């Protein structure tokens, strides 16, 4: 589904990613871990196409298509979803209206008809219940005045409604209490399927107690310094990122 080779990227001419290689197949869950400043969030944003980041070398193929040639909205319509670490507020724009616009943009791209109002509201209500979100939030402006946890639930709600093929969660677990954390994990686990892949970017092993990844990769100084199975996350939790410092330094 996703094939990344020797990916280099910069922000304001400062190199952040320095040669990432990663292959993700449908049905897989990959966890990307690493200390602050290792390039995790940059990686997530580069995949989604944020134009603040410039890809300087390497390639990203998504189902055989060159991602770099696709603007962010095309990537989204092709099934790439980014759950943001800091979801933005859009004053005056109804959350449910936004959700509908997003869903219809994706459906239109897939050649499907727009959902009618009744079907749409039924779908949203079902998903709202799944993510245990206060229903009144869907009638408020997008993320405006939401608590940190509510914003994250809202991201998961959007993911559940849009049903992406490749979902990237950018530190969705940061700052969440245990209940919200479980909600996020439940959302991912419910969507897990043979046709869908996840890239879960996280600083802590905590979330991985609830979502068992197929692969764990550790980023250091903009490249993958170690890959392994779920046990790698546990080892990191025990020994800390300093354990890998030698490797990181050597790689940098």
């Amino acid at each position, binding site marked *: 589904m996703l094939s990344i080779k020797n990916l280099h990227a910069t922000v304001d001419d400062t190199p952040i990613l320095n040669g990432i290689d990663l292959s993700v197949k449908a049905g897989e869950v990959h966890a990307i871990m690493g200390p602050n400043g290792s390039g995790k969030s940059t990686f997530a944003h580069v995949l*989604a*196409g*944020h*134009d*603040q980041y410039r890809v300087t070398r390497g390639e990203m193929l998504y189902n055989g298509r060159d991602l770099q040639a696709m*603007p*962010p*909205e095309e*990537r*989204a*319509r092709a099934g790439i*979803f*980014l759950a*943001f670490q800091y*979801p*933005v507020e*859009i*004053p*005056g*724009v109804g959350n449910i209206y*936004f959700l509908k*616009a*997003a869903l219809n*943009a*994706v459906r239109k*791209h897939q050649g499907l008809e727009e959902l009618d109002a009744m079907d749409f509201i039924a779908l949203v209500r079902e998903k709202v219940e799944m993510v245990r979100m206060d229903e009144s939030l869907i009638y408020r*402006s997008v993320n405006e005045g939401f608590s940190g946890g509510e914003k994250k639930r809202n991201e998961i709600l*959007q993911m559940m409604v*849009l049903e992406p093929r490749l979902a990237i969660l950018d530190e969705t677990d940061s700052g969440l209490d245990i209940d919200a954390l479980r909600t996020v994990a439940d959302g991912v686990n419910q969507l897990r399927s043979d046709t869908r892949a996840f890239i879960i970017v996280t600083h802590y092993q905590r979330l991985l107690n609830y979502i068992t990844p197929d692969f764990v990769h550790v980023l250091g100084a903009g490249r993958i310094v170690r890959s392994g199975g779920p046990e790698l996350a546990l080892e990191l939790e025990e020994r800390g990122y300093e354990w890998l410092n030698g490797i990181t330094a050597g790689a940098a």
Partner: protein
Amino acid sequence: MVAVNPHIDTLLKTDYQAGFVTDVEADSVAPGLDEGIIRQISRKKQEPDFMLDWRLKAFRHWQTMTVPQWSSVHYPAIDFQSIVYYSAPKSHSDGPASLDEVDPKLLETYEKLGIPLAEQKALAGVAVDAVFDSVSVATTFKDKLAEHGIIFCSFSEAVHNHPDLVRQYLGSVVPYTDNFYASLNAAVFSDGSFVYVPKGVHCPMELSTYFRINALNTGQFERTLIIADEGSYVSYLEGCTAPMRDENQLHAAVVELIAHKDARIKYSTVQNWYPGDEQGQGGIYNFVTKRGICSGANARISWTQVETGSAITWKYPSVILEGDNSVGEFYSVAMTNNFQQADTGTKMIHIGRNTRSSIISKGISARQGQNAYRGLVKVLKSADGARNYTQCDSLLMGDRCGAHTFPYIEVKNNTARVEHEATTSRIGEDQLFYCRQRGLSAEDAVTLIVNGFCKQVLNELPMEFAVEAQKLLGISLEGAIG
């Protein structure tokens, strides 16, 4: 300063969709202005003497005045002697008695603009007065409104059929001495709409006037007078468009509203005059004086405006709150793109006790657009317990545009409460990316964010027009980011 999004600029291309010219034979006066021209206009309209006298008084006063310089807008001096002050489609000079007799070319023009004048096709519940250059060419649903005693007609007709009402109210809110452009209007105004809603009548449909400037080098000087008698209600909407031309054209209108005791007037404007091209060539100078008076207790006047067009907009729809407990409201969206300039706001004059006013102003500036809010809240000594709330929000797109706020507050009564809030924000790169990551195109994302920003104001518009206004905001920003 926040980093500039180079894309915001490329998204800000405009596409003016009402820019066509209708080829009709016109009956015009020679360019220039003197007493002879004013007499000629008055004669063409077969006006009674009181009208001619009033026009001449206004003209003589105007000659003693100078062009106002205090606003923030810049434009080359206007040569008032090169303007044609009266132009009417020739077919009109015989005066069509009914819609069937209106020149089909004119009907087609309004049809193209989405304003069907044939009553069977018209929006249910909206009566339209169509003003083409200097004259009203058609008014729909007149008979139906007459059943309720409501007068809705062109100003010219009102002068003939209801001279007493015109005489009583004309200039009672905006006197002919008021300001440079209002005086000019009083001297040469050619047509406009007239509304009278009798005591206790709730007007059953939206009334609207659709203004169209067509002829070259012609100024449009219309005058609207709306009188809501005791306990009545009326909602009125105006829309405006003009062809795309390289020359600037002057539109200097006057609107007067009178709300008697317990009456309510809701006045909405969707202004889409030709804004000029991307280089700032051409466009309408929209210099308008709008004022209402709440003359009786518990009266209420609401102004709602969505200003997306014109090269320059200079207008301050105001309310004089004379009656006790009367209410004045001003809801405004002003958008300036390319080289457009807007200096707009309101005046709320509190005279009566417990009078209340609220002002919600949303300014959007893109590219080199300049947007100023200028507002006066004046509480007189007599206005015990007066209250005002003002909120001015500005949204900037790109780094060459500007937003300015000039609030003037004068309070002579210490029981008054006046609040003012102002914010300025920039369309965030992050907001755009968020929307695009969810599958929306950059254009749709901008429209969504801008409409969200304007929501408080758009909510005040009658339903059909709110939809139009939203589309218009989208079109006016087309190509803004991408």
